[in-house]
């Protein structure tokens, strides 16, 4: 039991240093991490950063232009929306919703998907067939439609959206974890652990899981982006997070009636969404390159 572990450990450590060096040279990864870092900080520090109350309405100051347009003031750097709420404050608070949904959903879907995938990859045979069937079934369900219907029926709140998306978005985790586990299963250290009489649970947790963790991390990153986009779409359709919450998707939807005269009400929250998702995707693609540099993208 200890022999294969000892043989693997130094190589892994060496790989770690090598990886860090590659990561620090990877432009996309660094840019993505930087933007995501700023957004996470912004979400955490929202009460101190936001100049106004994101829910505070001021009907006398509706649709104030942002500072670069005529009539804009520094009091509302990004202007106000149709109810006179400060747009910058709403955008800052909106990052909390997107990030909470993204990470919360992946926490749920990651556990479901990784469990199914690792089980399918390790046990093979019947288990594999069953899991493959589940994945095919899940992929055949129109995810936007089902999520929309369930959220609408149960009642749109942050928690409901997180749970529904978490229960629906596990397919990519399962597919990738299954393939990764199949590769690891045949390797010598797993055979050695089996020969040493280790229990299945121990092999899965101590031998298999650490060696598929890289790929789990990559999928998790990309799925955060997926969840953020889906929440925005649900909220845009009016059946996700409910008003007055400053969800970026909801903000775009509320701005539709003003889009011809105040187009920035649409461009700003959309750009924030685009930036966040782009940053997460760049980070995920970068992590994949760093974990497996020779693999073709």
């Amino acid at each position, binding site marked *: 039991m200890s022999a294969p572990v000892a043989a693997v450990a130094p190589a892994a450590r060496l790989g770690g240093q090598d990886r860090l060096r590659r990561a620090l040279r990877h432009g996309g990864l660094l840019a993505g991490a930087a933007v995501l870092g700023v957004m996470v900080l912004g979400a955490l520090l929202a009460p101190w950063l936001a100049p106004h109350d994101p829910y505070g309405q001021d009907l006398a100051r509706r649709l104030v232009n942002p500072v670069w347009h005529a009539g804009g003031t520094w009091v509302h750097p990004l202007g106000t929306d149709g109810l006179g709420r400060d747009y910058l404050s709403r955008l800052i608070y909106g990052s909390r919703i997107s990030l909470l949904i993204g990470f919360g959903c992946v926490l749920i879907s990651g556990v479901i998907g990784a469990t199914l995938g690792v089980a399918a990859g390790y046990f093979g045979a019947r288990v594999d067939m069953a899991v493959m*069937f589940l994945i095919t079934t899940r992929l055949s369900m*129109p995810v936007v*439609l089902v999520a929309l219907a369930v959220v609408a029926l149960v009642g749109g709140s942050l928690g409901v959206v997180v749970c529904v998306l978490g229960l629906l978005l596990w397919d990519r985790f399962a597919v990738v974890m299954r393939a990764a586990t199949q590769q690891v299963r045949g390797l010598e250290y797993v055979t050695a652990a089996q020969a040493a009489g280790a229990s299945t649970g121990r092999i899965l947790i101590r031998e298999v899981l650490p060696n598929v963790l890289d790929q789990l991390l990559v999928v998790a990153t990309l799925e955060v982006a997926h969840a953020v986009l889906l929440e925005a779409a649900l909220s*845009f*359709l009016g059946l996700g997070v409910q008003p007055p919450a400053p969800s970026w*998707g909801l903000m775009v939807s509320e701005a539709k009636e003003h889009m011809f005269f105040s187009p920035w009400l649409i461009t700003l929250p959309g750009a924030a969404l685009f930036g966040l998702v782009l940053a997460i*995707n760049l980070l995920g693609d970068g992590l994949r390159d760093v974990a497996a540099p020779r693999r073709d993208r």
Partner: protein
Amino acid sequence: MLTYTLKRLLLATLVTLTVSMISFALLRLSGDVAAALAGADATSADVEYLRRHYGLDRPVLVQYLDWLGQALRGDLGQSLYFKQPVAEMIRERLPVTLTIGACGIAFAVLLGIPLGVLAALRPNSWVDRLALSLAVCGQALPSFWFALLMILLFGVVLRWLPISGFGTWQQLVMPAVALGYQALPAIMRLTRGGMVEVLQTDYVRTAYAKGLPRPAVLFKHGLRNALVPVVALTAVQLGFMLGGSIVIESVFALHGIGHLAWQSISRRDLPVVQAVVLIISCFYVLITLLADLVNAWLDPRIRLEGSR
């Protein structure tokens, strides 16, 4: 080939049945339909009456079997809001969704495959970098936002295209692009990856060594083999598009089945929602089944895998 076809058919049927069962259960267990239908100020007697009238007081399994039996005979029930047969409503609106889906996937394929091939021919050149940047940006672009931006630019500022409606080809351009660009990055990347791999194989080198002209090698030996996985991916993406068209239909005010589903969800019109979920799943299963059969026909290794 026959065994493979039968196996895939059986699997497709099972998947469709399971999807219908899960979505039925999910929708029935998510909330009290009778109470939602009756409205906020209905008495409990009213709610009870509605529950009994629509058969919602029976066990979910009985309701499901009843619904499934009728659906198999082509009867998808009555809309609670429009008081119209659901099958008829879907038949009226399906052409809109299928048209923008077909145009969307055509856009993605016609742009994605050439871009992928060009990128693969000169890895790390500016073409390759441009294609990759496009793919990365495309994946991060929220579809509803992209659609609104197009409306602002081409509809309002430049006045090149109509911003809503259905019928002329001009009205199709923006919805098709807004739907199709979502599949473009995946198709482009897979084409590029497959092409890079194929161009390094021995048979391509042999073809060049035989003195075959470059286009013949690229298309006959290269692209043909690189495209096998792209066929399957395209089918999957088309299936996703039909499900995702709900967002685009709402932006462009198109009356397809996505829009119908959206309205029906807001009105708690469950028979319609259920039917649309079923129809879209059936299309997905059918399209992927066809793609698998085409692939098995193109590549004997796939159809023989099971019988080994």
